[in-house]
């Protein structure tokens, strides 16, 4: 006997949910329940035995606290600097190594290595390279071109910039690869037409290549900005927020509040604020994109 259509459909739906169950269960336990817990915790003063509801107090603390203000500022600077640096360099390198030649493929593979490396280990490597003494690797290189040794991570003025340097090193090849994929899609006949019209390379770049890359650009921008805002490992390993809080970002501050000082409520509120900022940024970028596409 063949099952009736409705019964077959119901059976299909049942099977679908059964196949989805493991994923949904894991998401529920390790994403949604923590998210919900975090939200409720952010309105409480968490104590060992009985926690108390404190309404928006935790949020008030965050928004008025100097440490949070500077952490938010550092996160923004780091996110925007890293994003802009990786995008510009990524685009530049992508243009330079575009092409089908075999040696270019080698250059691409080699240049891509930083992206797949383990952050924690790479950060240890950069810590050594950033050694402030004049024997440090980067300082030796600066010495060759007759520049003074820099303190890098050891100074309040340059700690954040030094972290940014490493993040750009690791982010550039990723952007480069995505730009390269975008460049493949550019219509070649347009280049030909431009050459017939006698357009210079610069004009060709500006009027044909760059407009074609615009969607890629926005995707990369959003991704990098979000990733930049939530940066943790880089800072935790390189400086742990120091010296003197000069490179403290939101996540390292939240981590310290949560796991070292035990201010779980405030830390959770910080997490929610970070999430809200991420969401806002994504929506803003999408709106800007839509507007640009419309005009």
């Amino acid at each position, binding site marked *: 006997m063949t099952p009736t259509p409705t019964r077959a459909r119901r059976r*299909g739906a049942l099977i679908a949910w059964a196949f989805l169950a493991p994923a949904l269960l894991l998401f529920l336990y390790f994403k949604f329940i*923590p998210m919900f817990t975090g939200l409720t915790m952010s309105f409480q003063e968490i104590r060992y035995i009985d926690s108390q509801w404190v309404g928006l107090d935790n949020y008030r603390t965050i928004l008025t606290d100097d440490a949070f203000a500077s952490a938010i500022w550092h996160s923004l600077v780091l996110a925007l600097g890293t994003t802009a640096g990786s995008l510009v360099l990524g685009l530049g390198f992508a243009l330079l190594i575009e092409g089908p030649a075999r040696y270019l493929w080698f250059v691409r593979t080699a240049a891509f290595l930083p992206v797949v490396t383990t*952050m924690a280990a790479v950060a240890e490597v950069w810590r050594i390279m950033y050694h402030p003494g004049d024997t440090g*690797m980067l300082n030796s290189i600066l010495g060759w071109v007759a520049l003074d040794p820099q303190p890098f991570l050891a100074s309040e003025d340059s700690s954040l910039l030094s972290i940014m340097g490493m993040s750009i090193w690791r982010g550039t090849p990723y952007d480069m690869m995505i730009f390269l994929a975008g460049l493949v899609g550019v219509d070649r006949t347009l280049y030909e037409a431009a050459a017939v019209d006698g357009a210079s390379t610069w004009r060709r770049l500006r009027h044909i290549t760059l407009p074609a890359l615009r969607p890629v650009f926005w995707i990369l921008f959003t991704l990098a900005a979000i990733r930049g805002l939530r940066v943790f490992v880089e800072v935790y390993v390189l400086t742990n927020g120091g010296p003197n809080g000069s490179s403290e970002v939101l996540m390292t501050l939240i981590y310290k509040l949560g796991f070292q000082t035990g201010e779980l409520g405030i830390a959770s509120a910080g997490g929610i604020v970070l999430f809200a900022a991420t969401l806002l940024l994504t929506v803003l970028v999408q709106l800007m994109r839509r507007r640009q596409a419309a005009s």
Partner: protein
Amino acid sequence: MRFDSALGLEARRGPVAVAVKVLLYSGMVLIFTGPLVALLISAFNETLDPTAFTLWPDSFTFENFVQAGERNVYLYLFNSFVVVGFGLLLQVIVSVFAAYALARKKFRGMSIVMLIMLTTMMLPEEIIAIPLSLVLADLPVLHLDLIGTYAGMILPVGAWGFSILVMTEFMKEVPVELEEAARIDGAGELRTFFTIILPLCRPALGVIGVFGFTMIWDQYLLPLIVAPESGMWTLPIALRSLRSDEEVGIGVVLAASLLALLPSIIAFLAFQRQFMRGLTSGAIKG
């Protein structure tokens, strides 16, 4: 004149152009691989200056790796492999099952499931780190304490939106006729899935496999939360303590860093094609 790139650099063959290109490309390779090469050389060098890397090795030695053993580095490496092995296995199984439902079945609530996937990808795991540590210490309903266990590091990476979406996109391409033919031959749901769909998805398995591997290998906050005792540390989180321990020499730190870097680099070089494919098919890595 040729038009296969925006700048047309490749077509320039003059001696000056070639010289500039050689300089440019070797400079690029140097910038991006230099730090890694410096680590590779220094880790095998005998006399170590804690402030600098050695680019010209004066003596080759395995001593750093021997000493690393005394500092439990191989235990940490073992932990990392346990987590990445079982974590990846779980992740791939969960992804192919979920993708099968999303790609081949029509059911009510599918758009909600898709929304759930996208939400989890939008939600940075860093943000839920603190509540996650509480949830892991006492799982709701089940009341299990996963702190200090492998399961605590494995289960949370089991479901990953990126893998599920990549797999779903791929499965949509598998022709329905093949599935129908199997049905007519009397194959059941699981049989169709394992004998028809899954073998055809092998290229996509490579993609989610290599991405999953690097993603799990790079986990930092999760093991940091789950493994308070050094016996359960994974290699990435052990590095920082090794370095700040006065008694541990720089050689051990270098050897351990190299061991932490190699697996994902090898995975990338071995599965390069799949990696690039995943990268460009969905620039949506969360």
